[in-house]
């Protein structure tokens, strides 16, 4: 049932909870019907202008032609889309995007489960430790990406200095030290950064979920003699499911749309070899606006598909009462 801290004097509330039904005049009834608008109107307006309208503009733009500096040259039919699908790099970019999302979100959620469990325990200095966890979120993703870019500099980056000191790195300025110059190693490092910046939110979301599990359940399990792993699997995980799923979905969307990390560390280069579909959209925008809009439409469609699949698979409707 509902358990809240009530600070007012609660007296017995009488049976009279509703005003007696009255016959309202027509203007009154109209006002009544429209009054929701007063409350939710601004919200709808804001969402409409800022979130929904650009979607329409985006679709419209994808069917138009432009010069490199934004002048509308008229209709283009499906040409932007055919140009986009003719791009030789598109397939590898899409594959890379899938890898990006699956690896980053998978690793993040897995580590978060452990971290949430860890930070849910009682130990001295827990509050300070929890605060440290917020650092990447507060510092902005862009900043964190720059820090790693500096740390990976082939000549003087601190990670290379460390690797040199422990003997792993042979010489500065070499190909081995040029982590961000080689597409494969650059991509791995960028995924590491993405995981790093996604952990705070996921850990906190799961932590919040853990704290809603009543301790009586754990007590009961202990009394019954269940092992910690059994307890985790049968009690914690199922009850954590709502928080887990919400965090999972939000992470998937965020990671798919992630831009600052790749932009700050490699600008998607060389060429497009470290670009995901969002970064590619931005690169296209510099000279091929129509095609960039087509890419946005494609990205948009992908997000919707992922969300719908997610809702289906997790039987979301049953979760939301």
């Amino acid at each position: 049932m509902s358990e809240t801290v009530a600070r007012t004097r609660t007296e017995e509330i009488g049976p009279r909870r509703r005003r007696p039904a009255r016959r309202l005049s027509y203007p009154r009834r109209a006002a009544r019907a429209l009054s929701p608008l007063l409350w939710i109107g601004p919200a709808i307006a804001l969402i409409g202008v800022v979130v929904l309208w650009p979607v329409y503009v985006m679709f419209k733009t994808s069917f138009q032609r432009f010069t490199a500096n934004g002048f509308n040259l008229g209709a283009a039919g499906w040409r932007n889309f055919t140009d986009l699908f003719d791009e030789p790099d598109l397939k590898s970019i899409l594959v890379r995007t899938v890898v990006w999302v699956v690896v980053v979100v998978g690793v993040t959620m897995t580590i978060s489960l452990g971290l949430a469990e860890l930070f849910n325990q009682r130990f001295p200095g827990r509050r300070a430790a929890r605060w440290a966890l917020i650092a990447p979120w507060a510092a902005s993703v862009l900043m964190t990406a720059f820090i790693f870019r500096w740390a990976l500099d082939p000549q003087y980056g601190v990670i290379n200095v460390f690797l040199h000191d422990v003997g792993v790195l042979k010489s500065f300025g070499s190909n081995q030290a040029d982590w961000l110059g080689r597409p494969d190693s650059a991509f791995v490092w960028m995924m590491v950064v993405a995981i790093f910046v996604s952990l705070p939110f996921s850990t906190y979301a799961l932590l919040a979920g853990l704290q809603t599990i009543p301790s009586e359940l754990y007590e009961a399990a202990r009394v019954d003699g269940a092992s910690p792993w059994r307890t985790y699997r049968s009690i914690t995980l199922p009850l954590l499911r709502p928080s887990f799923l919400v965090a999972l979905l939000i992470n998937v969307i965020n990671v798919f749309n992630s831009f600052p990390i790749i932009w700050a560390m490699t600008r998607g280069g060389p060429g497009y070899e470290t670009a995901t579909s969002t970064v590619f959209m931005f690169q296209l925008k510099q000279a091929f606006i129509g095609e960039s809009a087509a890419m946005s439409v494609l990205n948009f469609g992908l997000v919707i598909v992922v969300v719908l699949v997610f809702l289906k698979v997790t039987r979301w409707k049953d979760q939301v009462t």
Partner: protein
Amino acid sequence: MSTVVVTAPPTDISALPASKRRRPPTGRTVAISLAAYLVAIIFVLPYAGMIITALRPPAELQERGYVPRRWDWSNFTSIWKTGFGANLRVSLEIAGGATLLVLLVALPAAYYTARRKFRGRMLFLLLVLATQMFQPAAMLVGIQRQFVSYDLPSPTFSLILVNAGFNLAFAVWILNAYFSSIPSELEEAAMVDGTSRLGALSRITLPLALPGIVTALIFTFIGAWNEFIVALTLTNQPKEFPLTVAINNYVGQYSVDWGHLFAGSVIATIPVIILFAVIEGKVVGGLTAGSIK
């Protein structure tokens, strides 16, 4: 929607009287503490690196030491000469404006949705949920072309709208959960006593919903403060840049002058830390309610 809100986790040690806490630590506690401290250090390490580099003298920036031989504050002073103060002000305007706008719009919407079962309520909630899935990066082309075609006073104004719009969904969601968990009986009781609805709202409901409000506030503020891609696209002159765009500028211009870049980043982080310190403690409570449907 029936929701369960537990505001004070019963396992929280700080709720126990002091006498119960003075037990010697078990081996398990020690192991857990060490693991947690290690994790905390890992999370803080990159930012420590940033601060250390910001304190390097410019001549030492290409050297390969872990710490500078000489600590130098000059990056923090010379950065203001590059117009950084204006960037700081722009960021404050955008983040502050967006946060206020979100609260002004979300509070009534969430309250009404929680209290009344009006026609279209499910539709509205679905709309809110759907927009939580949209992100500015995905719609950048649309946003740019749209805001360019309006005759708006300044990019700051556009950015306030954009940031508010994209954070609105989360705020409505959290506030709705909170308001739903506060029984309307409390308000009714107060009104029986003779207070107006507004009075009941402000004296009873809002204080109880405070963790949720604070959570929505901080998520929006930080989201707007650290937003990059839309700001990069909509701003044109240096005095219009918020901090993220200004800092990104330093990378191209002085490509190895990490000192300025990191000094600017440190300065940019300070308001966020201040905000956290002010509302400390309520965030986890806020997230607790938000995750239960």
